[in-house]
């Protein structure tokens, strides 16, 4: 039953940030944290310069280069690609000139913006967080309202620390029960998108809940929320709980002392009330979710690893032609078992799966094993601190012994803006978030999956069910 005063988590965070409301419902929303990277910000800073405006709250603005930076060990010698170098230099200049918080390329804290924010304690429950990047949804794992914006909006936030917004609808995605062994957060979110489609969340903010979600670590929750955008929702949310507080406590920019107590007291009020109104509800059984991979060129093309490549005739409407195009692009024949698909490359990293827990999961599979002949592998930690942690645990050696390249932090082959790209026709088991045409390189072929599944595929030389081959 819906009650008038009952609110969702999204409603509560929204209400706490409304600065001004127009008669037509258009609101001015206050932004607590603005994350900035080099690709979507230069035109915004230039806009400020041209209009003589300044950054309203530089202490709430955190800049870090990630998309263009080389991940090779010689990067301290500078960026070879001129356009990339100009873009990173522009961020460096803009960050210093406008006085925002900044982690340059050679700072150990540099990394993918969505990994750095939580790691440094900039991202806290109940906040509004934006960035000129669609994977800003990641921060929703903390119970923060976080979403991507365009460059015009980046300029708007820089100048005013607010965003003009209309409220989205509320969608609940519940994953009940427990996950089977070998099934991870990545499998859960791919299964959700496979179920709802890439436009299933359009116009909505998704709150992920249920026992299976509750049981995830913060790393796993970030993986889930990260891909909310792949399901069409600008933002995903998970209500903060003790797991969240434990992760946040002690981070450099987390509140301390009495402020910590006050913050936690407020954070504990951040949950969806019984009787709150949901515009859309989707429920999945955690026990039903298998290790999941994508076969096509949309994240909704997700299937259990036990399935076969579908045929265009399995679909209806515009998806028939899209599936035909995908199969052609991916070089796949309907009816082929997914486990028969041979791969050429493995990419472990990205804002979806570039955190320490992801590297541990992949390393666990790879310990004492090596990449199949002819398969190349690359591990790109999500931040300098993730890399340092992994090296302290000896994971770098596990990867190197298995035949992987061990790299420096950045977005890397998730989108290949730096030299890390697939060659035409090359097929990759990737822990990233998008399998779009050309995403990882011109004519490159991407299969999305979890770090354990990607590592296992690397060892086998083809897609493989991690539970069968390497199960305990």
């Amino acid at each position, binding site marked *: 039953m819906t009650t008038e005063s009952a609110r969702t988590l999204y409603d509560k965070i929204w209400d706490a940030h409304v*600065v001004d409301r127009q008669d037509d419902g258009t609101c001015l929303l206050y932004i607590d944290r603005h994350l900035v990277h080099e690709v*979507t910000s230069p035109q915004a800073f230039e806009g400020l310069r041209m*209009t003589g405006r300044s950054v309203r709250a530089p202490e709430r603005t955190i800049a870090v280069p990630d998309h263009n930076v080389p991940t090779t060990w010689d990067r301290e010698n500078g960026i070879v690609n001129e356009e990339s170098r100009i873009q990173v230099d522009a961020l460096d200049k803009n960050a210093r000139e406008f006085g925002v918080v900044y982690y340059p390329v050679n700072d150990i804290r540099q990394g993918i913006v969505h990994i750095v924010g939580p790691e440094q304690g900039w991202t806290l429950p109940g906040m509004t967080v934006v960035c000129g*990047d669609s994977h800003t949804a990641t921060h929703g794992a903390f119970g923060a309202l976080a979403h991507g914006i*365009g460059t015009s909006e980046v300029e708007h936030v820089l100048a005013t620390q607010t965003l003009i917004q209309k409220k989205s609808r509320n969608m609940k995605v519940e994953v009940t029960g427990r996950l089977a062994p070998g099934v991870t957060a990545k499998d859960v979110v791919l299964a959700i998108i496979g179920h709802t489609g890439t436009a299933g969340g359009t116009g909505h903010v998704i709150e992920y809940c249920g026992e299976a979600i509750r049981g995830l670590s913060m790393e796993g929750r970030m993986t889930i929320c990260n891909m909310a955008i792949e399901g069409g929702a600008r933002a995903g949310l998970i209500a903060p709980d003790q797991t969240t507080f434990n992760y946040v406590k002690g981070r450099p920019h987390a509140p301390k002392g009495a402020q910590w107590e006050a913050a936690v007291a407020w954070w504990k009020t951040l949950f969806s009330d019984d009787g709150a109104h949901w515009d859309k509800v989707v429920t999945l059984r955690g026990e039903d979710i298998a290790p999941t991979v994508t076969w096509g060129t949309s994240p909704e093309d997700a299937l259990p690893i036990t399935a076969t490549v579908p045929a265009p005739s399995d679909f209806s409407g515009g998806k028939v032609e899209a599936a035909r195009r995908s199969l052609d692009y991916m070089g796949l024949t309907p009816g082929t078992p997914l486990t028969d698909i041979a791969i050429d490359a493995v990419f472990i990293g990205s804002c979806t799966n570039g955190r320490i827990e992801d590297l541990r999961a992949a390393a666990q599979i790879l310990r004492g094993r090596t990449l199949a002949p002819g398969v190349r592998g690359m591990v790109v930690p999500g931040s300098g601190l993730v890399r340092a942690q992994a090296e302290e645990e000896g994971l770098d050696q596990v990867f190197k012994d298995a035949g992987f390249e061990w790299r420096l932090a950045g977005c890397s082959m998730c989108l290949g803006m730096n030299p890390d790209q697939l060659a035409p026709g090359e097929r990759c088991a990737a822990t990233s978030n998008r399998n779009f045409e050309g995403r990882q390189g011109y004519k490159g072929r991407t299969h999305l999956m979890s770090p354990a599944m990607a590592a296992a595929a690397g060892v086998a030389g083809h897609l493989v069910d991690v539970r069968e081959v390497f199960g305990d």
Partner: protein
Amino acid sequence: MDKFTTLTGIAAPMPLVNIDTDMIIPKQFLKTIKRSGLGVNLFDEMRYDRNGNELPDFVLNQPAYRQAEIIVAGDNFGCGSSREHAPWALLDFGIRCVISTSFADIFFNNCFKNGILPVVLPPEAVDVLMEDARKGANARMTVDLENQTVTTSDGVSFAFEVDPFRKHCLLNGLDDIGLTMEKAPAIQTYETRMAQSRPWV
């Protein structure tokens, strides 16, 4: 930002569903620090071969559609990355209006910031407009923002919904940062209040 009032022009049919922003403007063109000049690379990997030669089958390479100002697209146009380079590339090519059954949220927003009108219509209406667009250069479609209608070359009209505030900004070519700056006192009041109630932020 240029005003958008009424547009009569050639519409290009792109029935493919889930056209993402990586397709609209691939990553290698995001390295610019300017907003202009992206039109030549609009839909780059669908439009050119590896050597930069035009692929004759691609709709915008066909003589009838080289001057298109409208795109009639399949479901969920503009999904994926938040890159505003996508509307910048469309605009630079000359596209001022995209019509579909649905758009991804961030792309939809970004259009309004750049004087591009995204029009959402039901599948039956988009089907009719897609057929009209297939007629080529002689069939000019009219998009009237003031009256919120799209009219085919043979006079069939469809009414569409648009957010009143966004309509107002588009009709008048308004810069919304300027509008928000006028609300600086309200922002200041909010910040003062939050410094008291949530000082850790």
